[in-house]
Each structure stands twice: as structure tokens, then as C-alpha cells.
């Protein structure tokens, strides 16, 4: 029998190894799954994880997928640090796309360098407003943000669908539920000709740097962290809890909104009903997989984007359902939560001699 034994203190090493273990376990489970489906496991994994990025075009597409996930996840790292559980990045992303599109369509005949910044700003405001609703409900009525943000996701999706079927529908679009194509002034320029990679990826990287500075260098970030770790210490020190909840949610919402407007003004070029295949939800997994740390989130984002592309690739070349993407995301989160137990507990096999276990414990402590 295997026993779990408290470590007495967190293992920093395990905190970083746990995502790696989770990745390995996901690969093994994936391989078994492919074998059961009658595929060659290695070839299937190759199709899923290596083929999509074997050329420049693939790498560029990886960045296109990574940008919105990264923006959402880095924003979530701020709220999650404050232990405010914003599950609504998806809805905030959709609202960013919707309000950004409304702005771009209103300015469809305008030209000038100012159009795009205005469109992007509108998207950020849209996302921030949506998160602000949850902040208002939480700070004024003590409404649980997990529930409100999830419900706001559905409201945002339905608002978006209503808009593309109604006021924002392209009058010359043969009644398809799509908006008109944005004017060139409202489109985010591409970075490399011949690919779809655009400046959105740079925004995302810039956001990573800014949030990193915010959380590690600024007093505001410090207050957010204290609030999350120990709200009564924050209260005693005189940090204003409600204000911090507002700020964290607004930052997170604005970044998700930027992700949304980055999609409609970037690779899509118009508002369509399906601007996100669940980027806002995937970002939750990414934020935890990356340990809420900017570098970790960057790496986890690339992995998540790869899984999205791999799912599409597997559908095309192997004829497997695209639900594979969701399956791999789910397994990753599941294994991560399981492996996280090892941060506070160590596995002990009583059959092992006691002294050996003690030696192991000493070694682990030395590593920590």
C-alpha cells in the first residue's frame, strides 16, 4: 500500500515539477487512448503535438492561437492571486469582441491611425465592463464571483449571437449571421507577410511583462497578493479590500477583452458567432498549469495552443473527433490537480525501510 504523509512545509521543487508530471501522465493516457481507438499511439501523438509546428506556417498559427489564451491567462493570474475566482474570461473575451466590433463597424468609413487604437480600447472597455459587473455584485452584495462570472459568460454569448443576427449583421451579407468586413484602418497589421501572425502576439507579450512588473515590483501587486494569501492581514494593514477586488477584476477583464477584440480585428476581420473555441476557459487551465507565474503561463499557453492545433490536425489526417482538444485539456487539468497533492504531501511506501524513507526526506529538504 502507498501512504500519503504531510511534508510539514510546501515543496517548491514539486510546485514546478507537478505540471511536468501532469504533462507526462497526459501523454501516457493519450497514447493508451489512441491505442484503444485503433491508432498507432506514437504516430497519433506525433500528429497531435509535432506535425502542427513543423513549418513556419504552423509556428505562426501557433502564435495566432496563443495570443488570446496568453492575454486571458495573464489577466487571470492577477485575479487568482487575489483569490478572486474569475471564471468569466470567456464572457469578457466575447464582450471585448462584441464592443470592439461595434466600434469598428461604426467607424467603417473612417480612415486614420487612430481608428485601430480606438477599436482596441473599446474591446478592453467591453471586457472590463463585463468583469466590473461581477466586481460590483461581489463587493456590493457579496455575490459569489464564480457563479456570477459563469452566468455572465452565457449572457455574453447570447448577446453576441443576437448582435450578429440583428444590429451588427452585414446588410449585404445574404442574411448570414456575420458582420461586414472591417475597414483596413481597424485591422491589426500582420507581422510576417504570408502568415496570419499579427501584432496581437506582441500585445500579449507586453501584457506579460507589465503584469510581471505589477505583481513582483509594485505595491499594488503586493496588496493583491496579501489579500489573496491572508485577507485578515490585509485588513489589519489597512489595504482596501473592495478596491483591490475591483482593480484585479478590471485588469483581468480588460485583458480578456483585448484578446476578444484582437480576434475580430486580427485573424477574423469581422464579427462572427464563433470568435472563441473556449479560449477563456482554456486560460483557466493555463493559469494554474503555469503556477500563476508569467513565465510558467507563457510556456503553458504554448502547450495549450499546440493542443488546439493538434486537435484540428488529428481531425484532418486521422479522422478523429475534434473533441480530442477538450479531452486533452481536461486530462491536463485533472492530472495537475492530482499531482499538486505532492506539493504538501510525500508518498511513502511502508514496505520501504524506514531509514531509506528518512534519507529521502532529508534529501528533499536539502533540495528545498
Amino acid at each position, binding site marked *: 500500500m502507498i501512504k500519503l504523509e504531510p511534508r510539514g512545509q510546501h515543496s517548491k521543487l514539486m510546485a514546478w515539477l507537478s505540471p511536468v508530471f501532469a504533462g507526462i501522465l497526459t501523454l501516457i493516457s493519450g497514447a493508451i487512448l489512441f491505442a484503444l481507438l485503433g491508432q498507432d499511439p506514437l504516430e497519433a501523438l506525433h500528429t497531435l503535438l509535432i506535425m502542427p509546428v513543423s513549418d513556419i506556417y504552423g509556428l505562426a498559427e501557433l502564435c495566432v492561437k496563443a495570443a488570446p489564451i496568453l492575454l486571458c491567462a495573464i489577466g487571470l493570474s492577477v485575479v487568482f492571486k487575489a483569490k478572486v475566482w474569475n471564471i468569466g474570461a470567456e464572457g469578457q473575451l466575447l464582450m471585448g469582441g462584441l464592443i470592439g466590433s461595434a466600434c469598428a463597424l461604426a467607424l467603417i468609413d473612417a480612415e486614420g491611425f487612430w481608428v485601430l487604437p480606438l477599436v482596441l480600447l473599446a474591446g478592453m472597455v467591453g471586457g472590463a465592463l463585463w468583469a466590473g459587473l461581477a466586481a460590483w455584485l461581489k463587493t456590493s452584495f457579496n455575490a459569489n464571483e464564480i457563479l456570477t462570472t459563469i452566468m455572465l459568460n452565457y449572457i455574453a454569448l447570447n448577446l453576441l449571437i443576437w448582435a450578429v443576427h440583428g444590429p451588427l449583421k452585414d446588410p449585404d451579407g445574404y442574411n448570414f449571421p456575420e458582420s461586414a468586413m472591417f475597414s483596413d484602418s481597424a485591422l491589426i497589421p500582420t507581422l510576417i507577410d504570408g502568415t496570419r501572425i499579427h501584432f496581437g502576439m506582441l500585445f500579449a507579450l507586453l501584457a506579460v511583462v507589465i503584469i510581471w512588473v505589477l505583481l513582483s515590483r509594485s*505595491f499594488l501587486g503586493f496588496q493583491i497578493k*496579501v489579500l489573496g494569501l491572508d485577507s485578515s492581514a490585509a*485588513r*489589519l494593514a*489597512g489595504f482596501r479590500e473592495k478596491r483591490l477586488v475591483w482593480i484585479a477584476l478590471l485588469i483581468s477583464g480588460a485583458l480578456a477583452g483585448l484578446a476578444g477584440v484582437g480576434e475580430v480585428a486580427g485573424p477574423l476581420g469581422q464579427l462572427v458567432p464563433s470568435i472563441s473555441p473556449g479560449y477563456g476557459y482554456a486560460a483557466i487551465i493555463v493559469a494554474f498549469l503555469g503556477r500563476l507565474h508569467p513565465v510558467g503561463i507563457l510556456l503553458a499557453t504554448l502547450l495549450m495552443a499546440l493542443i488546439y492545433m493538434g486537435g484540428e490536425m488529428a481531425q484532418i489526417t486521422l479522422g478523429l473527433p475534434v473533441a480530442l482538444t477538450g479531452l486533452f485539456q481536461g486530462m491536463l487539468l485533472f492530472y495537475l490537480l492530482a499531482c499538486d497533492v505532492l506539493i504538501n504531501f510525500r508518498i511513502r511506501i511502508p514496505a520501504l525501510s524506514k531509514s531509506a524513507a528518512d534519507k529521502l526526506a532529508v534529501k528533499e529538504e536539502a533540495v528545498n
Partner: protein
Amino acid sequence: MAEAHITPPRLTLRRITKIYPGCVANDSIDLNIEPAEIHALLGENGAGKSTLMKVIYGLVKPDQGEVLWDGMPVEIKDPAQARKLGIGMVFQHFSLFETLTVTENIALALGDDAGDLPSLAKRIREVSEKYGMALNPDREIHTLSVGERQRVEIVRCLVQPIKLLILDEPTSVLTPQEVETLFVTLRQLAKEGCAILFISHKLDEVRALCHNATILRAGKVSGECKPADESSQSIARMMVGDDTPISTDYPKVLREEPFLQVSGLNRVSDDPFGTDLHNISFSVNAGEILGIAGVAGNGQEELLGALSGEDQVENHDAIHFPHGAVGHLSPRERRAAGMAFVPEERLGRGAVPDMSLKDNALLTGFLTGLVNRGMIAHGKTREFAEKIIDRYKVKTPGTEAHAESLSGGNLQKFIIGREIMQNPKLLIAAHPTWGVDIGAATAIHKALIELRDKGAAILVVSEDIDELFQISDRIGAICHGRISPIKPTPDTTINEVGRWMAGDFDEVEIKA
């Protein structure tokens, strides 16, 4: 004691050893308790008293050593077996259900042995009368005082046949008068043949009550003595070793220029089982220490919350600094006006457990130039933390160590140092040496006196009446949310303050 050679000891521990990862809690401990003996187990926090108790009560399994009960080797597997042998234990922190009656609580603790409730209530009444511990079995726990709650715990042990009663720091929650009553009960129990293991760090009480004492230091037995033959000083030496300074007397001062003025402070507690504050009025002068005594749960938490600014009061003028009313100000604004605060809970309020000492220095030190245009001055913050560690001799590997890795005493030195190094004009300290070892307590008292002599007003709220008499210049007590008269310490006695703690005072006149 001659008969001890004929009948075997009630309990014998031989070479009890318990090792936790990274620490030897009990190192080959021997202990003998005779029937009818009141035996003291002394030692500082972390000396291994709790672990040893838990071994006897079956909560912890020792790694080595044997336990003999009436001369026969036994293995005590769990508290149920301990109770069957006749061992009862009264914990420092009670585990009672507030909304249930005394009888129901005791029935829950006894499990199948409780029998039907009416006959249990009868037994409770008999036992409580026999031992002079008035207790109504039908009352709900939340209506009882702390002293009465402790009686419930003791009676719970006595309704069953008892041969060994273990009491963990039983007097820390009692007024001096209640302590006397408890001692009468314990002496009567011992006379009937029950052995008593009395765990404490209050040496005067141990000398008054106990026949023998075993002293632990760092997991080992560091001495055995007959407390009545020793002085408190000599026992303290055995507890702390030779190189730690033991407390001294401090000269008292009288000052007249008030810094903090509380007048007519009323507050309804947010907690349904909390204590409302009624017409609290007192002032703390610059350059003096005011001590407020009181048994836990008499409104201290509510008073401290109102003073710290965590809870704001409706009548802004009820709390007054020299520059004006502060009742409506946030903790941060009060800090900016010269207040510093040491809360009761070190981890989880005074310090963030999961953050480094450097970050914890910033937690309340942010108003002293550690933040520059919204950005943390990391270098200065580290220096500040290093200064605290150096000046107050905090034992830690460095500024990056997490607060939770420090012992209670070391963390408390850090927190008090952090507050004092900000040069406050008013320091409010709640239970500053609670659960702290003697060495650290002495260091903390010294730091408070030094700050007083620099002209700061200091308010100390504590349950430890000896501590208050040692460091306070003036002293009062709080009971049921009301404040007693406040007298200069030399003009009052422990007995008088003890009566105040029990609510025996006329309410102070309120200034218009």
C-alpha cells in the same frame, strides 16, 4: 510518600521518545506519578509538554519507550482506551458546542457511556456539588463564562471513574479568584486518590499547588524538584537554561498628557456570540503603558477591532488622537497618524504565513518610505527587515524565510520589532507574549519599556495578569464589555484587579 514503595505508581513513563520530521519532541523522557499526587509538568513552549500529554492520552504514538499503568505495561492506542483506564484530560482550548446544553455536550463526549440524559444530568449535578463547582446542567454553553466552560470540561472527566486527570494550562483563562476555587477542587480530588498532572508555566501557582514537578527543556527532562522548596527564579532557571535572561522589575512612571482618548465607546458585536461594548472610556498617556486585564471573550476583540480601525465606529469622537477624532479612519489612516498595532494572531493577521519576512516587513512598514511612486523599494525593504532581525535578535536563516517557518516567540519578536521600528506615537499590543518562551517574553517587555521611555503611549491588552503588573504603569480590567476603574499599578493589588476581571466594579462615570 513511604507507601509509594509498596503500591506501584499510578503512571510510569520510561524513555518515551517521539521524533517529528526535523525535531525531537520527546527525547527519552521518564516520569512517575503516584496516586493522590499533584504533579507539575513545566517547560517553555516547544519543550515537549504537549507531545508528552498526547502520548499519555493516546493521541500520539511514541516511537520508543513504554507506558506503565498501575505497574502494568500498557499500550494506549486512542483516547477512548485512555478514558477506559481512568485518564481524563482538560484541553487548553475547549471543544464545546455553543448551542447545546451542558448535559448534551457531556453526553456527546462520553458517547455510549453517557446513558440517558436525565440521569446524566443528575450525575453532573452531584459531581459539581461534591467538588464545589457550581454548574447548571440545563444551560446552553454560549451563556456560560470561560471559567464555567472549563468546569464543564472538568466535570466531563469526573462523571466517569477517574484515576488520572491531566490539565493543560488550566489557569490561563481564569481570574485569580477562580484559580483559587479550582485549586480547592483539585486538592480535594487528590485527597481522594486521583493523580493529577498539571501543565503550566505559571510558577507561583505550581509552587502553591503541586507536590512534585518535572521540568522539560528542548524535549528532555532538565530537572525534577519539589516546587514548594524552590523559588520561582530557580525553577525558571531549570526551564530556560543558564544563558537566557529572566525578567526583571521595571520602574513605574506617571504621565498626564493623553495621546489616545476613548470616551463613551459603544459597539454591538458582529459575532452572535461576541460581546457588545458598553460606554468604554479610558485614555492612554504619552510615555506610559496602560494595561487592560480580562478573561478572554469579555470584549477585548471588539475593543481592539475598534481601536485598530478594522471596525469603524459610528460615533467618530469616541476614539480620539491629539489631532482629532479618528473613529471613522481606516487602519492605514490611523497608522499615518502615528498608531502601530500588534494583533493577537501572529500568523494570519500580524504576518502573512506564506510570505517572506521581507514582504512581511513591508506589510505594515509601507508608510515609512519603502514604497516609491507605487513601486516597492526592494533594497530598502530588505534593509528594514534585516534591521528588525538584527535589533530584536530574531532567529531565522534570513529575510527570505517564510513567516510560518519561525517559532511563535521569534515571529512575535519580529512583529513587535516591525511596529516599534516605525517609531509609533501609540502602540497597541494584544497579548504580546502569549505562548512565547521566557527569553522572548523578556526581550519583548524590554522593547516595550524602551519605547515607553522614548515617549510613546502604549496600550497592552493581556490575559496574563502577572505580565500586566510587571510592565504596566496604570492598570484596569474589562468584563462583559465594560471597563473597570483604572488605577496606577502601585496603588492596586492583584486581588483587586482580579475582582474587576470578574465584573465587581461600579461603572466609570462618563464625561459629557
